[in-house]
């Protein structure tokens, strides 16, 4: 079954009142250009980390978000700074891309800085968690980012609690929680969505369906063709977005956000995409081994073919077709369809390279926290 941008799950899907224009049709030319820049930025972040890791400069595991950038950029772009997000392992760019529309160098924007995120990756003391937990297990109360544990789907009830409290305070915040499709099998996923549905909490769950959970394909994870169908069982909308098309993701998320902000409750948005590499960088070689054979005979073969379109390419085509950029503009920096080791800095706009450079340089110079911190902050005194 191939994905089309309009595909949604009956009967809950029609969140857009008849005749109303798609949210993305309201975006300005500047918005479109910014979205493309953000896709570059997310891609470059990943590429750069992969290279750093290969050079032995990073510890730990790297969960690449390559090919899934449209999900992140498309879902974050329409949020207000006061909204909350709850990213997990494959959403690393989300931490600094939150509220990026408010200005990449705006000190007041409500997202982590690139310096903070790099300090986290490098295990340095200016990480928001002072390098006490690794990779994506960070967050910030003031920046409205929920701190996950490793335990998959474990932040969804926390997210529900956060917006419950916000609503009690008279706020109108929504929360986006991100999950791999594999993580939806956790009991807590069900408990949290059910609770959110009962109380019509503004909890939007993005299911990043990249068709593999580590070494397990979707047909062993759940038994529906379209995961989004699960939503109907909770009496909430389940939408399917083309995870390669940043504008389709934006549309579906904004429909869900408007629904949620209007007090109508949660939704699930399945973004169909495909994992570019192994589960983590330690798994690249094995994944290259186990996946192709399995995918070739899979029922979701069409989905995968569809998801091989590079989201940057898809975005550029749209911008060209809208007349916002020329083909020459599109061809100026070409990173699409290239694996990390095949890209050079010239394949990305200079402002993107410069932004990350700042973060990396800061992180490299930042010290590791002192040993004694290991014994601190078990309790608030």
């Amino acid at each position, binding site marked *: 079954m191939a994905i089309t941008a309009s595909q949604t799950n009956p009967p809950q899907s029609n969140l857009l009142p008849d005749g109303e224009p798609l949210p993305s049709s309201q975006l300005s030319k500047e918005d479109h250009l910014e979205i493309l820049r953000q896709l570059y930025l997310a891609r470059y972040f990943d590429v750069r980390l992969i290279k750093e890791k290969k050079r032995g400069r990073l510890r730990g595991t790297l969960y690449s978000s390559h090919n899934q950038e449209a999900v992140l950029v498309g879902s974050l772009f329409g949020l207000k700074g006061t909204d909350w997000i709850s990213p997990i392992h494959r959403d690393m760019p989300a931490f600094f891309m939150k509220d990026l529309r408010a200005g990449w160098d705006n000190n007041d924007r409500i997202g982590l800085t690139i310096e903070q995120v790099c300090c986290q990756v490098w295990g340095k003391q200016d990480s*928001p*968690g*002072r390098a*006490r*937990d690794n990779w994506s*297990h960070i*967050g*910030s*109360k003031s920046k409205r980012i*929920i*701190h996950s*544990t*490793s*335990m998959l789907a*474990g*932040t*969804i*009830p*926390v*997210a*529900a*609690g*956060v*917006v*419950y*409290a*916000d609503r*009690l*305070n008279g706020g109108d915040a929504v929360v986006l929680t991100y999950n791999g499709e594999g993580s939806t099998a956790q*009991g*807590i996923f069900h*408990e*949290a969505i*059910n*609770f959110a549905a*009962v109380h019509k909490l503004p909890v939007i769950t993005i299911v990043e369906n990249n068709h593999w959970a580590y070494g397990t394909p979707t047909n062993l994870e759940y038994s529906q063709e379209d995961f989004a169908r699960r939503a109907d069982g909770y009496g909430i909308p389940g939408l399917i977005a083309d995870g390669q098309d940043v504008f389709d993701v934006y549309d579906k998320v904004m429909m869900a956000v408007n629904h949620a902000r209007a007090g109508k409750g949660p939704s699930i948005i399945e973004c169909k995409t495909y994992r570019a590499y192994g589960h983590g960088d330690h798994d690249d070689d094995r994944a290259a081994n186990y996946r192709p054979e399995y995918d070739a005979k899979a029922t979701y073969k069409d989905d995968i073919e569809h998801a091989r379109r590079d989201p940057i390419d898809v975005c550029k085509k749209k911008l060209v077709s809208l007349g916002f950029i020329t083909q020459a503009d599109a061809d100026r920096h070409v990173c699409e369809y290239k694996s990390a080791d095949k890209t050079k800095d010239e394949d990305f706009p200079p402002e993107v390279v410069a932004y990350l450079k700042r973060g990396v340089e800061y992180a490299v110079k930042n010290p590791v926290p002192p040993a004694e*911190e290991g014994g*601190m*902050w*078990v*309790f*608030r005194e």
Partner: protein
Amino acid sequence: MAAIAEPTTGIKKNYLTAIQEALAEEMARNSDMICLGEDIGILGGAFGCTMGLQDQFGPQRVIDMPISEAAIVGSSVGMALNGKTVMAEMQFIDFISCGFDQIVNMMATYHYRTAGEVAINVTLRGPAGGYGGGALYHSQMNESWFCHSPGLKVVVPSTPYDAKGLLKACLRDPNPCLFYEIKQLYRDSKIAEVIPDEDYIVPLGSAAIRRPGTDLTFVTYGQNVYHCLQAADILAEKGYSAEVIDIRSLVPLDEQTILESIKKTNRVVVVNEAPKTCGYAGELVARINEFAFEHLDAPALRVTRLDTPVPWVQPLELFVLPSVEKIVETATRVLRF
């Protein structure tokens, strides 16, 4: 066997009333406080601890949750992350195992993980303990799991005065607290007592000496405080003077009060009703060993539940749980060592 409380005059209140009052008073005092749990609103709680709360404070602040312990804990954490004070009830403390991951990995570690940015003010409370024919899943004392999970405070009151004062202390403490209520004491009129009308707390980490003595120290908490007091009566008849320390708060622990006592008595018996292996009784023995070894004239021994679940019918249940006889027997061994 009356519990020691601030001497006041007035009507005696039982343990359940003390808890009801603590919750209602804190809800009134703190408009940022939320209560959630199964059947706590319309019903007022399986044991009535939250009776009347929903009428008084509304269904937004007193939430009848679906039967989802993990979501109860997780959403409590989220509310606390967003500035609320939360009381979450486990209908029986036995069901806490269904929300286990959220407690030990999400809630307990939040402050540590965020290097102090976020303190999670959640008090998880629920009825606990055996001796009532509740069988395997309505009798547990599983506090050891949580004492072993850094970042949680763990409290077990044995008197109405303490139940109210410690519950208020937990609700005002910025850290996550587990509050074990001894359900056999809820309506026990023998321990009902006059408690102050004025607002008070019992600070976490302070033990109470329930009976002074010179020959042997009982270190205990919960239901077994009363068994130790009875054992002390029996020992007194035999000419031994036993001191009974009710630690009340397991994390943090008041080591000082225990040390002072052992300096005096040089002998100690630890009593609790959890399974023996890796229970808090063993922890007490290990600590006493560390901070009071040179004062011991005999090994510190434990009286605990056998390493079994709690069986249902009475002779079996009493066979596996600590009893006054077992306590006296062990104390006598220690005294004669």
